[in-house]
């Protein structure tokens, strides 16, 4: 990366101090609520209702975390959430990569129509589909299984991922793909060996979208997996709440525990989302 200039508007801020400022803005905007939860998870209920409010906990305590894990099988929730999210992410990526490729590269007669349909289906609020879905899952005998969630979650992220990947695939010079086909790949071979790696930013982003979608969903998880052993995190976290009581500190603790894996995931994968992947490939 040449020190001469950062691309585009970003270049405006390529000066050190300004960049520092930018970083600060970003981090405050993104991290503040997360930090607030973190702090809360270290406070006592009493400190919470104290006035004036305190920002940093006076007497930090891990008791809330203890309680979070003792009151409910939090580790179990984590595990379920993770597996469900992981499975649906993989499924989503696979399916949407294939679909996106078809829409981006093949000359299909009803391309526009198909696109609109894919978008159309995503315009239904899940709430309204709850009951029919429940029946489907029961008839398929999937209630209280991971699959019961994996399928709907996949569909939940499918449209956005597909459309996103379409726009990315269209950005990849066809000749790279052609080269792969000359080298003896099938179209799909070329897709997975060349196009997908070059779209890494898009693919990983799609992956993260799908993962988070699955990680956060509440309504379906509540309805389809009543078996406590299969509860996911959002449902689980609700359980700390009483009919009237809303124990912020404990719930915050649980939330923190819930966010960490996602955070780790992001930190791991953001490294892959690097620019300039296509540099030097094509003359033109």
């Amino acid at each position, binding site marked *: 990366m040449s020190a001469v200039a950062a691309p585009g508007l970003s270049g405006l801020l390529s000066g050190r101090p300004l960049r520092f400022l930018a970083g600060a803005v970003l981090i405050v905007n993104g991290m503040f609520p997360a930090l607030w939860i973190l702090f809360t998870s270290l406070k006592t209920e009493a400190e919470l209702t104290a006035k004036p409010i305190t920002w940093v906990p006076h007497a930090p305590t891990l008791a809330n975390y203890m309680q979070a894990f003792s009151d409910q099988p939090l580790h179990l929730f984590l595990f379920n959430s993770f597996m469900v999210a992981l499975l649906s992410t993989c499924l989503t990526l696979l399916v949407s990569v294939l679909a996106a490729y078809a829409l981006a590269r093949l000359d299909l007669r009803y391309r526009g129509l198909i696109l609109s349909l894919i978008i159309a289906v995503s315009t239904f609020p899940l709430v309204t589909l709850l009951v029919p879905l429940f029946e489907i899952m029961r008839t398929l005998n999937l209630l209280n299984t991971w699959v019961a969630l994996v399928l709907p979650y996949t569909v939940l992220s499918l449209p956005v991922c597909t459309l996103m990947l379409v726009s990315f695939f269209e950005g990849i010079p066809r000749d790279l793909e052609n080269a792969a086909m000359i080298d003896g790949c099938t179209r799909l071979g070329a897709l997975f060996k060349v196009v997908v790696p070059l779209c890494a930013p898009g693919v990983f982003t799609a992956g993260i979208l799908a993962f988070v979608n699955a990680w956060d969903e509440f309504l379906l998880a509540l309805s389809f997996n009543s078996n406590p052993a299969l509860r996911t995190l959002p449902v689980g976290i609700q*359980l700390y709440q009483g009919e009237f009581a809303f124990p912020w500190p404990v719930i915050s603790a649980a939330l923190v525990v819930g966010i960490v894996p996602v955070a780790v995931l992001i930190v791991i994968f953001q490294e892959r989302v690097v620019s300039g992947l296509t540099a030097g490939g094509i003359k033109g």
Partner: protein
Amino acid sequence: DTDLKIFVSSQHQPDVWRKVLDKYEAANPGVKVAIETGGNTSEAQAQYLNTVMSAKDTNLDVLMLDVIRPAQYAAAGWTSAFENKDMSVYLPAYAGANTVDGKVVALPAFADAMFLYYRKDLLEKYGIAPPKTWEELAAAAKKVAEGEKNPDLQGLSFQGKAIEGAVCTFLLPYWSQGKNLVENGKLTFDHDAAVTALKLWKDFVDTGVAKKNIAEVATDDTRKEFQAGSAVFAVNWSYAWTHFQGAESAVTGKVGVTRLPALGGGEQASCLGGWEWGVSAYSTHQDEAKKLVEYLSSEDVSVFMAANGSLLPTYAAAYGNNEVLKAVPWFADALQVVETAKPRPVTPRYNEVSEVIRTTVNAVLAGVTTPEDGASQIEARLKRILR
């Protein structure tokens, strides 16, 4: 042998209920009962149960229902009725709440009601007796406030947020004027009474008895504030008591509990809570399920749950039971409250009724609408619902 699955609201000691069920299983070899929980608030559970039941799921046999739901479930045909069941053994209010046009659709699990909590210490300090009317309460609050000069100390905390609690908030003074909202399925709305009721609360806000942001206050906020010692009076359910005695409480031992006040000239009224046992219409073990429910709503169980789960009994006699009083002495004062507590309108479309009332109360308290308009809105929309 048969496997039964019962849905228990997880905020009401499922583990204690488990003990009860163990007893039952011991007594009835061949019957196994599994507990299922889902969601921790009445709303969350309703959401879950509604889904399951609308899908005609045969999986659940017995459901624990918030007192406001049996009518709705019965109408939807989700619960099966109990033939020739004598309801007189229960507290009359519950007999009523579980009987929908003549049919017994569920049996009471435990009772609950709204109480007036007050700061014994402060009232004594200023030589005030626990108020019998809202006016007295207002006066008392003022007096204390002037005396304490503590800006954070509010007179009365109640529920102004658009939640179920707000319905009771409205009904308390409304009932107190001897009016009813619904009588055997028909709307009997009294506009003036409604206006008076709404004005009462609005005035509390305007005169500073209650705080400006009361429209933000939900049930547990009331609990927290009172527990933190920043309210002289609080309107709340029975669960609050245990918290006030708890370790984190700033008011341990300084709390008194009594019947809710009346409007001048009216009778004191409280709002009935509590939960019921229903048998799913889609259950494939109707008889076993009913048998189980009969047991779960028996006096012994009621006593046991009171003593071990501090859930209010649904049998008058149980309030005198030594075992109970040993465990939770204050139940002695509770009976009177529960006996006189009124059930919220018993109608299949209660949720809609509730929605109308809670949002309007919230709007009035937020100062978005006047009590008069509020009352008219309630009337208009209730007419539409209960036409």
